């Protein structure tokens, strides 16, 4: 039983980590090699990894044009392919509605291997080829060179705030349990005891 409990907690923890890894912003230093606007079929398998149909750039639930940004890594190998879609207003909470501007910035930074322009693409999401899903580019900024590195301060702050929120919810729950549920249970038990005593007095003969 204890093993089952730990297994369930383990799976939940893994899911939480994967969820955060997908949602929190990440930064890649890349060179933009090309752009595309590709007719894409979004199926039931990967629809949760694309923008919801009512957000700005996606017009239909199944068929849509998705803007793609092709990149190369500083070591010369092919980098990730990013998509560039509005996020809409619910999830993930980036509230991005400037895809066209991002695409125009990406076009501006497009460069060749001979005369590279290095950019940092802030993005969330994963590239999984078998599911045809791409990380979504949120911001593109020019950086000094391919060795540029960036400490994810924002992620640190978000994780601390999340931990504080969980701690707060736990305290609220414990307070609720201490002050409302336990006294109510105790009172109900007392009332039950009183009733039982009354009944037993009723049925036992006084000597």
């Amino acid at each position, binding site marked *: 039983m204890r093993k089952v409990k730990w297994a369930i907690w383990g799976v939940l923890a893994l899911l939480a980590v994967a969820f955060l890894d997908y949602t929190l912003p990440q930064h890649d230093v890349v060179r933009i090699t090309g752009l595309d606007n590709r007719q894409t079929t979004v199926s039931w398998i990967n629809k949760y990894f694309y923008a919801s149909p009512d957000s700005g750039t996606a017009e239909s639930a199944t068929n849509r044009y998705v803007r793609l940004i092709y990149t190369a890594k500083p070591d010369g190998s092919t980098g990730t392919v990013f998509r560039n879609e509005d996020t809409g207003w*619910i999830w993930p909470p980036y*509230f991005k509605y400037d895809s066209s501007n991002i695409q125009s910035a990406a076009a501006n930074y497009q460069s060749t291997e001979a005369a590279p322009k290095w950019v940092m693409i802030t993005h969330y999401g994963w590239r999984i080829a078998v599911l045809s899903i791409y990380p979504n580019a949120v911001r593109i900024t020019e950086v000094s060179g391919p060795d540029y590195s960036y400490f994810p301060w924002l992620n640190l702050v978000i994780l601390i705030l999340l931990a504080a929120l969980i701690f707060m919810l736990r305290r609220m729950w414990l*307070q609720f349990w201490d002050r409302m549920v336990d006294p109510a249970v105790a009172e109900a038990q007392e009332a039950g005891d009183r009733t039982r005593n009354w009944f037993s007095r009723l049925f036992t003969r006084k000597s």
Partner: protein
Amino acid sequence: MPELIIGGFVGLTLLYVALTIYARSVHRENLENQFDAGGIPGLREVYIRDGLTTYDRSLRKRALVLVYVIPVVLIVAIAYVVNHS
């Protein structure tokens, strides 16, 4: 956008109510502990009732409205940073 406004309002209201109950409960517990530590004249009930009345009018209690304000400010800030900078 309508989903965000309606859903956000419902969610934040739930949080606001829960936080209100929690904060009042903590305050009441503190008052009880203060009285039980001794040295306070009068009745326990009166002390706690007066303390809670003062709390209900306090700035601390009113600061709970920040539950609605902070997320709105955050959303506007995120949207600004993501789209306009």
